[in-house]
């Protein structure tokens, strides 16, 4: 019997057109995802294989949620079908066992689902043949790789979610409950992921993530490129447990359903669940027994009272609202929806209660964060619910078989149509309100009482609601078009992805036009959803272009609605062609007129937007920009080493107009020829879109002038009379922000919290690299090696300047304060504007900025230095910590290295719409509002790193490391700037906050480094030779390395060496310093026994692989404890793409054969000091560096107390990918 039903069901699916549409869509979208993931062709290929196991896992994993949402339409429908058609009344009387019936249904549904989903594999495979895919980056089909993913992940995941869907639909006999169950499931997964994040609970999160992704990440996070390319997925340990855990859950769910399932006509045990929700409705409304009236009762004469009928427009609008309410109530009372609301609410709470995390510290529960966090994820839920309920409402009459009764009433189509549409909008509003309630509740419980209800309402309903409405418009069309609401739902679901895919693939297939916002439904401004918001700058002038696009797509959506209305099913059309002919006949009169009006407005708006996108400020697609830049690089390459005059003095006049978001500036350069040659050609760059003009105080002519793709100008100027060595040339320049309109808002000047740096001023020399960075091209113009004698003639940051005198008069509106480097000479008011005259006390690096905002100012003093923090009123939480950070940083650097060069130091807040980072300018430290000002550091449970303090210290340290000690333009320059600033930070933290916080920080940094190095597609440089774009080296690795160095050499010794170095090289104006020069000072301070450190930590990439094989504690008679430790140490160099090398340059290597496991462990020769520690809680019972010369080691130690933990390199000073086996807990 089983096979009969199974085959029958399968045949049914094979005949369903919907199945093929699902399959085609999966094929298409996976194909697009596959090609979207592509690598650039040959030359700049990174070495990443596109179809390695881990990459395939990622690409296919992208479809996880789509697959889950497909399952109700197949596995849910398979059981719902019999209820819907009332077949169950007949079927359940048939002589088959429920075992046969249920399993056949279930397995046939699974088979069909898996068939559809397997198209993903095919799509991804086909995508690898596309012309724009570099064939070298593809292995080709491999059954094991695909089999692993589909067999171990995709199929079990279908099984799990499919079981839930099958059971929910089986119990409730309602297919929508199946869909909602999936949404709730996704929300639940999200909440679990929030509570047990992989960072805090790696093991738990690996088990709890039902997709299996976290468990894979657990093992592969630190994989290098070589490992990623070569390895299959790790199917052991947590991955296996994860799979087993969820399969057991699926089995339990299915079995309990199976045991309770009976062939009954009414959903009896389902009802029991449903009645849970009827607590709200005290009396049961179901009718039992017959009606008691006597059948022969006489009928009185039918004499219905006269009523008046009203078919006026006003009444029809009222009817629309009446119907809207009816539909809305129907959905809101629907138990699955109630569950969804509850689940959604908790998801919001879990999401926002942690706040915006940075490292281990959360932000304050600011309104913008309460909104930002859940909106991004919740927007997907709102869309899914919209698509689902659009189908449900449009087909509601038909589903209940009451469509004939409704359709013969004199209510026009548009009333019915709009009532559904408005009901959906009400649902959207309900869901958006959850965010508001969740946010306010969280704020309340966190003791944050500044409820900005207005901001909630503006953001949710003013800014974002329209976004969802426009999607609802599309859903109305799709769901009106398809009579199968599940298919319609699925197509709606893929539509947003499809529009992104189109924009992505368009340029690849030679249609760059498709990149434009006017072709991407409900998008524009490049982003899918939402607007960045700042407490200082608000929406930063983005509202008008945002609403311009939203208006445009609203018009577009209205056209779709028009289409949907003509396709609206009224009565019983029997074929699609009849529907079309009805649509044609409906498309007349007012509808046609309205449609034409909307069409004209839509096209007009489209042209306007396209014009604004492209014409007033010439538009270049991303591809065009890249091509133009490459062409310019080729063309101007010969100027790469041109000698430019140096800027020695900058005087600026800068007028900022915050309300108008506009600036008007002018400047004077004094240039000196510091070379020994006559300079007759000057190469000059400046930014596009600043209306710049310039003039030299001498006779000159242009050799060429070019604007490169709307990014920058590249001019070549010939001086009539060459500039002789040491001669001076004056230059003036003016610049102005571009004229604004509703579409183009100048974003450099903010309403509040402006931060503009020196990049707006002209630069000299060949300087195109930064453009690559700006447009996100890989920065493969690598720095020269520090031994390159030419290189060290130039500064890392500015090749056209060494030191400058700086002076600026900055003006702003009368309610704001303007800031620039230097001491404030004078401040005055004039014509409702405030003027500030700044001049630096000493020469500074060519690094300056202009800031303006409505600030409160905190003032303090350290020794004779004036300290100030400028912050937005309301952001005072961490100002004191910043002040403390400035003092601590100044004290450490001043006492250990050299005196501070200015008389004042300021931290100034800027709007986060201008970035979230902090920077160190001479005497001014601009700091994004999210970078410390709004961190929740006061919370009584806060144990995280105090990074308001830390960031201040780091940026203060740059006054030395960057402004006093200035690295040459060579590899390793960032070690001198960033690693050293971090070193200062760690030392100060150690002193002020104690060992514990530092160790936490170090652990975090190490993890950060190990994860990021795994993503390095190029070559991981040694710390000394780090490239400027290898942030993961000079920040986290630098931090850990210098901290370890301090622990090995002693802080005093190391600081003396560094201090000597600083005094030697500070304020150098030629022969800028390099890492080898710095390492000489450190080497000098290093005893011979530790000299290997310099090689291992700085000159090469060297990793350890140590582990405890065994640790035994035996109590001694005298009350002490003996620990017998058996451990292994191995060391290797990590070379190109993470390949491990165990031989040193001389070919020496050691090895050890572990007879128990029959494996041979290799290592570089060892004479290394490894810290062995024994702890009792936080108490250090034993901590000493032991010299290790062999791989296999045994040691016995005696301590006074019973230990809780033993560790090899217990605090993680050395780099070891597998840290866990270095520790043993008791």
């Amino acid at each position: 019997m089983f096979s009969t039903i199974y085959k029958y069901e399968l045949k049914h699916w094979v005949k369903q057109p919907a199945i093929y549409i699902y399959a085609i869509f999966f094929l298409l979208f996976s194909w697009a995802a596959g090609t979207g993931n592509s690598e650039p062709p040959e030359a700049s290929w990174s070495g990443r294989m596109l179809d390695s196991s881990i990459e395939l896992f990622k690409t296919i994993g992208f479809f996880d949620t789509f697959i889950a949402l497909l399952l109700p339409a197949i596995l849910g429908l398979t059981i719902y079908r019999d209820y819907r058609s009332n077949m169950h009344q007949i079927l359940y009387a048939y002589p088959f066992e429920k075992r046969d019936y249920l399993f056949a249904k279930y397995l046939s549904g699974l088979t069909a689902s898996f068939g559809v989903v397997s198209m993903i594999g095919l799509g991804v495979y086909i995508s690898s043949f596309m012309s724009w895919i570099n064939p070298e980056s593809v292995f080709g089909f491999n059954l094991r790789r695909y089999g692993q993913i589909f067999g171990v992940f995709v199929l079990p995941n279908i099984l799990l979610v499919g079981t839930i869907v099958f059971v929910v639909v089986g119990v409730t006999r309602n297919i929508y409950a199946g869909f909602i169950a999936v949404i709730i499931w996704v929300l639940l997964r999200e909440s679990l992921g929030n509570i047990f994040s992989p960072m805090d609970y790696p093991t738990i999160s690996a088990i709890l993530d039902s997709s299996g992704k976290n468990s894979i990440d657990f093992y592969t996070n630190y994989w290098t490129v070589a490992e990623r390319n070569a390895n299959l997925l790790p199917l052991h340990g947590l991955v296996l447990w994860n799979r087993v855990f969820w399969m057991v859950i699926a089995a339990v769910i299915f079995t309990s359903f199976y045991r309770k399932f009976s062939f009954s006509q009414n959903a009896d045990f389902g009802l029991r669940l449903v009645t849970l929700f009827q607590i709200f409705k005290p009396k049961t409304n179901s009718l039992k027994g017959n009606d008691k009236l006597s059948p022969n009762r006489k009928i009185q004469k039918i004499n219905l009272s006269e009523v008046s009928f009203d078919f006026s427009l006003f009444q029809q609008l009222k009817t629309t609202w009446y119907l809207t309410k009816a539909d809305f109530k129907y959905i809101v009372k629907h138990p699955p929806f109630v569950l969804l609301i509850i689940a959604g609410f908790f998801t919001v709470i879990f999401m926002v209660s942690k706040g915006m995390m940075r490292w281990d510290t959360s932000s304050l529960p600011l309104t913008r964060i309460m909104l930002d966090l859940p909106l991004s994820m919740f927007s997907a839920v709102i869309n899914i619910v919209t698509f689902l309920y659009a189908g449900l409402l449009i087909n509601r009459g038909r589903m209940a078989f009451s469509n004939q009764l409704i359709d013969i009433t004199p209510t026009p189509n548009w009333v019915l149509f709009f009532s559904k549409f408005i009901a959906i909008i009400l649902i959207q509003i309900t869901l958006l309100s959850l965010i508001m309630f969740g946010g306010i509740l969280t704020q309340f419980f966190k003791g944050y009482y500044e409820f900005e209800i207005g901001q909630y309402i503006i953001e949710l309903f003013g800014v974002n609601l329209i976004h969802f409405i426009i999607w609802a418009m599309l859903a109305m069309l799709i769901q009106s078009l398809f009579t199968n609401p599940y298919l319609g739902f699925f197509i709606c679901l893929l539509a947003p992805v499809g529009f992104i895919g189109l924009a992505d693939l368009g340029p690849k297939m030679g249609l760059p036009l498709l990149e434009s916002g006017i072709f991407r439904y409900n998008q524009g401004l490049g982003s899918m959803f939402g607007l960045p918001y700042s407490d200082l700058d608000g929406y930063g002038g983005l509202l008008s272009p945002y609403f311009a696009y939203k208006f445009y797509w609203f018009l577009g959506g209205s056209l779709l609605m028009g289409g949907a209305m003509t396709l609206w099913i009224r009565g019983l059309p029997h074929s699609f062609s009849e529907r079309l002919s009805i649509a044609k006949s409906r498309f007349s009169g007012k509808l046609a007129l309205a449609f034409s009006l909307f069409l004209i407005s839509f096209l007009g708006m489209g042209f306007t937007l396209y014009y604004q996108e492209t014409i007033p400020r010439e538009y270049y697609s991303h591809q065009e920009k890249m091509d133009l830049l490459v062409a310019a690089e080729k063309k101007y390459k010969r100027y790469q080493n041109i000698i430019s005059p140096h800027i020695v003095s900058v005087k600026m006049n800068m007028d900022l107009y915050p309300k108008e978001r506009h600036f008007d500036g002018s400047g004077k350069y004094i240039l000196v020829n510091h070379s020994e040659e006559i300079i007759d050609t000057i190469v000059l760059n400046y930014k596009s879109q600043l209306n710049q003009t310039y003039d030299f105080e001498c006779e000159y002519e242009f050799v060429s002038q070019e604007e490169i793709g709307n990014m920058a100008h590249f001019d070549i100027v010939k001086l009539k009379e060459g500039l002789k060595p040491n001669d001076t040339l004056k230059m003036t320049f003016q610049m102005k922000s571009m004229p604004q309109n509703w579409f183009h808002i100048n974003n450099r000047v903010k309403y509040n919290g402006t931060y503009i740096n020196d990049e707006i001023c002209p630069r000299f020399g060949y300087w195109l690299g930064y453009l690559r960075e700006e447009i996100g091209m890989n920065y493969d113009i690598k720095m020269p090696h520090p031994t390159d004698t030419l290189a060290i003639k130039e500064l890392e940051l500015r090749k056209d300047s060494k030191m400058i005198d700086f002076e600026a008069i900055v003006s702003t509106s009368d309610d704001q304060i303007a800031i620039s480097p230097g001491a404030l000479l004078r401040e005055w008011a004039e014509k409702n504007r405030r003027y500030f005259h700044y001049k630096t006390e000493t020469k500074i690096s060519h690094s300056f900025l202009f800031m303006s905002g409505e600030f409160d100012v905190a003032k303090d003093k350290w020794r004779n230095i004036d300290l100030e923090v400028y912050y937005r009123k309301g952001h005072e939480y961490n100002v004191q910590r910043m002040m403390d950070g400035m003092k601590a940083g100044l004290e450490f650097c001043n006492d250990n290295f050299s005196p501070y060069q200015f008389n004042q130091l300021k931290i100034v807040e800027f709007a986060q719409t201008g970035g979230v980072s902090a920077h160190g300018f001479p005497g001014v430290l601009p700091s994004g509002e999210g970078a410390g000002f709004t961190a929740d550091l006061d919370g009584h449970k806060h144990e995280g790193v105090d990074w308001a303090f830390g960031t201040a210290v780091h940026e203060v340290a740059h006054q030395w490391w960057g402004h006093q000690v200035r690295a040459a333009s060579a590899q390793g320059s960032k070690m001198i700037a960033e690693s050293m600033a971090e070193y200062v930070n760690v030392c100060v933290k150690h002193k002020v906050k104690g060992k514990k916080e530092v160790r936490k920080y170090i652990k975090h940094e190490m993890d950060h480094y190990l994860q990021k190095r795994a993503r390095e597609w190029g070559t991981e440089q040694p710390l000394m030779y780090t490239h400027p774009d290898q942030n993961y080296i000079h920040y986290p690795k630098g931090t850990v390395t210098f901290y370890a160095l301090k622990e090995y050499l002693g802080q005093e010794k190391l600081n003396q060496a560094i201090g000597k170095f600083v005094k030697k090289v500070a304020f150098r104006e030629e022969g800028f310093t390099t890492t080898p020069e710095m390492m000489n000072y450190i080497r000098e301070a290093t005893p011979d026994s530790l000299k290997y450190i310099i090689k291992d930590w700085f000159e090469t990439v060297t990793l350890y692989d140590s582990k405890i094989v065994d640790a035994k504690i035996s109590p001694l008679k005298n009350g002490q404890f003996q620990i017998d430790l058996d451990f292994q140490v191995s060391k290797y160099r990590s070379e190109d793409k993470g390949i491990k090398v165990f031989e040193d340059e001389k070919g020496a290597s050691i090895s050890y054969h572990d007879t128990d496991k029959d494996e041979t462990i290799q290592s570089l020769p060892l004479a290394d000091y490894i810290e062995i520690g024994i702890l009792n809680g936080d108490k250090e019972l034993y901590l000493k560096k032991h010299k290790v010369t062999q791989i296999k080691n045994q040691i016995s130690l005696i301590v006074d107390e019973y230990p809780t933990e033993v560790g090899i390199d217990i605090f993680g000073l050395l780099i070891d990918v597998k840290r866990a086996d270095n520790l043993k807990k008791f």
Partner: protein
Amino acid sequence: MNLTINNLTKIYKNGVKAVDNLSLEIGTGMFGLLGPNGAGKSTLMRTIATLQSADTGNINFNGINIFEDKMSLRKILGYLPQEFGVYPKVSALNLLDYFATLKGIASKKERQKLIDETLEITNLYDARKKHVSTYSGGMKQRFGIAQMLLNNPQLIIVDEPTAGLDPAERNRFLNILREIGTNNTVIFSTHIVDDVKELCTDMAIMNGGKVLKHITPTKATNELRGQIWTKTISRNNLENTENQFEVLSSSYNPDNSINVRVNSKMKPSEGFSIAEVGLEDVYFLALRGE
């Protein structure tokens, strides 16, 4: 009040001619549309009820061309389809209010009053707060009538309403229809001849999309008076009898003998006796005559 159907044709995509060049005129009162299953009754009724389109022909009611002005017809139309469902978990009261609004009654008070009246008429008043989805078959049909009456309709179309009702329910149902039919045009399709006999002032017999006969029930039975003969025969003789005579219908007796009814101007043979003419005879004769 007058419904005129002219040359109506409807062919489905699968080639079935559901309505075949049909013309019909229907006046005030109960009009019975009699025909076997698949005769095209429902298609015709749904077409009149503005739910379906026709390929050719037109339908007029009181000067309204219903293909061109569906809305005007809908304002005065009451329709009870052969099968209908209701929104689950909604009480009769709320559902009727819903329909009354759809039918254009703006005032809430008037809606309430009218709803109470229709509930009274259909004997549903006591069950008005119960969910309609839990009603028995007869109650649901009466609910169908209640919603139908909400706009005081002038043209009422009822598609096989008595199928599946128990005799008492059927009785009650027909009584209500009769009441409504006195002043309005009621088109009532059925394949149960008795329904028509008890109720209709005019009727048509339909099959294969065509009207086979359009006549009043009384006239129809009068026409056949003296032509219908009956005889009780044994089972084995049935085939023989059918070959010899124009057998309109046959029915078993408890003793397994068979009563046959035969159409003949004269006494067909020995053993036949003259029978009272029933509407069935008209019906079967019309179907035979195709």
